[in-house]
């Protein structure tokens, strides 16, 4: 399973992007998903794989990728059948309060 290679490629692809580069982020995420999908058969028992598969749709939602066309005409991806989530899964998959976010950060010396 080469899932960490996919994650590193994603980190490399996004390292230089500005925060307003939604289309480029979406492209990078599509590549990330393609890479992850390509490793799927060998990753069935790998927990990193399963957590990454969960993360990518969240990031695509953050960058509004469903409404963002590929920036470079590429980024094709495999569609995978998604099982219908249970009611509890749906309730736990997102917070339903107001959608304003705050940030806190700590770094340096």
């Amino acid at each position: 399973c080469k899932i960490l290679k996919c994650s590193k490629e994603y980190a490399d692809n996004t390292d230089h992007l500005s925060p307003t580069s939604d289309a480029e982020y979406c492209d990078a995420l599509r590549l990330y998903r393609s890479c992850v999908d390509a490793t799927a058969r060998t990753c069935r028992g790998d927990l990193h794989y399963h957590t990454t598969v969960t993360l990518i749709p969240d990031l695509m939602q953050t960058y509004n990728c469903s409404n963002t066309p590929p920036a470079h005409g590429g980024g094709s991806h495999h569609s995978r059948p998604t099982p219908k989530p249970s009611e509890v899964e749906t309730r736990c998959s997102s917070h339903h309060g107001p959608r304003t976010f705050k940030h806190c950060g700590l770094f340096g010396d």
Partner: protein
Amino acid sequence: PHLRTFDDVFETCKVAGAWPLIDNRHLAVQVTNVPLVDGSSATATDQLTVIIKGHSECSEQKLYQAQTGNLPASFVDGTYSSGPGRSLVIVEILPGKHVEIHAKFIATTIVVRQVGSYLTFAIRMPGDLVDTGVKDGLELCVKGCPHQEKIDFNELLSSPNQIKDTSGLVMSKETAIAKCLEANVTDFYFDSCVFDLITTGDVNFTMAAKKALKDYQELLPNANVHRNRTTDVPLQNKTSL
């Protein structure tokens, strides 16, 4: 370390030892900071503890602990996720360097990095879950640092270079500015970068500022551009560079 609070207040603090960043009904985050160089009150973070408090339906309580040289890709109990549909999940982006915790049921993302020998922390959390009305407690992310813990580094940054010989500075201001300009960090992150290089000479702090800015921009991609704080500081050499 340098702190950006939930209310977008920028501070540089001593806060040596263990301090709470967040302590609300959903989440507790604590850091431990250690002194860096003799003669300076500056410290940096070498341990971080995150407690995701349990939710009856969505997640068990989970504990995450990181320290310098040990950035685990799992919670302390060895698990990677919790809850239906993996409503709480930990993701290793770069082994030993970058870990993210996604708590979907509270729409919260936590980013922990090790840059050089120290840790950085960033969080995005819904505003309605950040309890800013708490009167007691020391949550640094909510209240900022106590007055006596703050470092006014404008004074240091605006001092003429020649004081470096008597104040124990380990890198000249010009060199620090040049390195921070190369890193393309801006605003508070630029000031922080210069401060860190002047006080330690450790160029890893350039990358720490860069990653902190990147995390902020990625966690809040629609946030307004923050004010250009560097203009507050009379860095004459920056202009010439």
